[in-house]
């Protein structure tokens, strides 16, 4: 039997309607907040991307310290800075809107303006091609002279050794300035032996970590990011190391057989890649020796089956008497550009451009100047998308593009 109580039923119905309305309002409110959050994220990303695109073409306006950017009128604040990291640069852009921040670090490389395969300055001697030596691409050689050569029992085997055009070179190699730099911002110095763990990752948003090594052998370490490994003496890098995006700075650096990593090396005397070593893209080797002592030999040696994807630069003072050599043994490969302010012994393959003062070949009996035996220079195998260092200083500095985001 139902008692009279229309008021009670009315209140119950009101409460029910009220609950439905409130939940409807809440759902709508949170849905709007979520869509506003997503659209803010999209706008943040889009603004950040636009600023990156702007500074790819105007990196000279930036320096190591964050600069506020006012390209768009709006509430999104953006700051940008650029740092040198060896042959490459790191563009840091961060965008802020209220509590949301987006930080993008881009690893930049120069667009390759070098369309030629070989540049050899005119010292009055032609180049002699021996064995299976070939050049694919245009060349700048002394007096446009490229001839067949003969060493002991080896002569030139093929019909053609140049697949490209010949041009006359000038008397000097183009001079490279500031091709390998590391920004001198505040660093944190740590001894490698004092590290508690064998792994270390340092973001490019933090200060650079300088790892000082007193030991000659580096073994079983996992280092990646904004790290410079320094030694006052030589370094022997074992193949059980996992090194990525770091810079190694030592007078001599040797990599054990089978090593693989992404490294830039700054040496003074010697860099040796033993058999089957792979330095992946974007790596680099830089030797800068201004020593006037003729006894000091500067050398980059790529042994059998070793590969490097990046640039090799051996340079020094024009008045320096020390010998500068790059030796690329049989089956060794370089993907990138090579610059040698000295002599190059090419027995392997360069897929890119070579700038060198002269060639040489050392046999058991003698050594020959400006001879290329079995070596191949192939400009067409280097993709147009390859970014690294451009040695072509005509028409100003090359543009920078993004290799990868860190």
């Amino acid at each position: 039997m139902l008692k009279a109580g229309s008021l009670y039923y009315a209140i119950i119905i009101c409460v029910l309607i009220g609950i439905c309305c409130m939940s409807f309002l809440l759902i709508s409110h949170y849905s709007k907040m979520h869509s506003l959050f997503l659209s803010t994220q999209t706008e943040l990303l889009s603004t950040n991307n636009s600023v990156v695109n702007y500074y790819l073409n105007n990196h000279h306006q930036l320096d190591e310290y964050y600069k506020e950017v006012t390209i768009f009128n709006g509430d999104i604040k953006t700051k940008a800075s650029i740092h040198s990291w060896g042959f490459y640069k790191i563009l840091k852009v961060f965008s802020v809107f209220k509590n949301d921040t987006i930080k993008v670090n881009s690893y930049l490389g120069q667009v390759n303006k070098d369309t030629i395969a070989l540049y050899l300055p005119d010292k009055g001697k032609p180049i002699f091609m021996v064995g299976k030596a070939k050049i694919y691409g245009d060349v700048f050689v002394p007096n446009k002279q490229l001839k067949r050569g003969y060493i002991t029992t080896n002569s030139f085997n093929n019909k053609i050794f140049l697949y490209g055009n010949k041009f006359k070179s000038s008397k000097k190699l183009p001079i490279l300035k500031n091709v390998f730099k590391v920004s001198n911002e505040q660093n944190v110095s740590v001894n490698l032996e004092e590290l508690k763990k064998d792994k270390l990752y340092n973001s490019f948003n933090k200060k650079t970590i300088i790892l000082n090594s007193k030991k000659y052998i580096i073994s079983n370490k996992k280092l990646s990011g904004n790290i410079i490994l320094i030694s006052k003496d030589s370094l022997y890098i074992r193949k059980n190391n996992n090194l990525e995006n770091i810079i190694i700075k030592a007078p001599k650096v040797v990599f054990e057989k089978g090593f693989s990593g992404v490294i830039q090396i700054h040496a003074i005397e010697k860099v040796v890649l033993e058999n089957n070593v792979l330095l992946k893209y974007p790596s680099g080797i830089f030797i800068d020796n201004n020593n006037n002592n003729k006894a000091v030999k500067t050398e980059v040696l790529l042994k059998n089956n070793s590969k490097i994807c990046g640039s090799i630069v051996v340079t020094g003072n024009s008045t320096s008497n020390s010998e500068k050599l790059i030796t690329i043994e049989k089956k060794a490969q370089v993907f990138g550009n090579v610059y040698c302010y000295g002599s190059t012994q090419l027995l392997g393959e360069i897929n890119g451009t070579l700038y060198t003062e002269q060639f040489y070949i050392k046999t058991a009996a003698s050594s020959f100047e400006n001879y290329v035996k079995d070596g191949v220079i192939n400009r067409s195998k280097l993709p147009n998308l390859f970014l690294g260092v451009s040695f072509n200083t005509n028409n100003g500095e090359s543009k920078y593009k993004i290799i990868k985001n860190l």
Partner: protein
Amino acid sequence: MEKVNIKLLKTCSFFKASSLTESIIAMVIITSCISVSFLIYGRVISTDMNLSTLKAEQKIKELLLKTKKEKSFEDDYFSYTGYEISKRVQFLNTNSVYKVSFYVTSGTNNTIYDYIIEE
């Protein structure tokens, strides 16, 4: 007879009647609740994002990709059902970098989307 009537009444009277005042108050309460709920519903629906605005945002992404791919760095105007997009390209005084702005008009809403792209 009277006794029978009273008995019948007692058996049939399982619904007790509310007073008139009570009934009127109850009806007023229910009606006001329902009208408030309709108001809330109408308000929420009208302030929610317009479908045209969402379509326009997607279209802008398409047009931006097309501008990059075809390198069509010229001003243009597009008219679609429910919205219009006006594209303005400004050459920034630097190496082949353009500022592309899309002005979207959808009903009474006007929004601007800015991008910087390189050639």
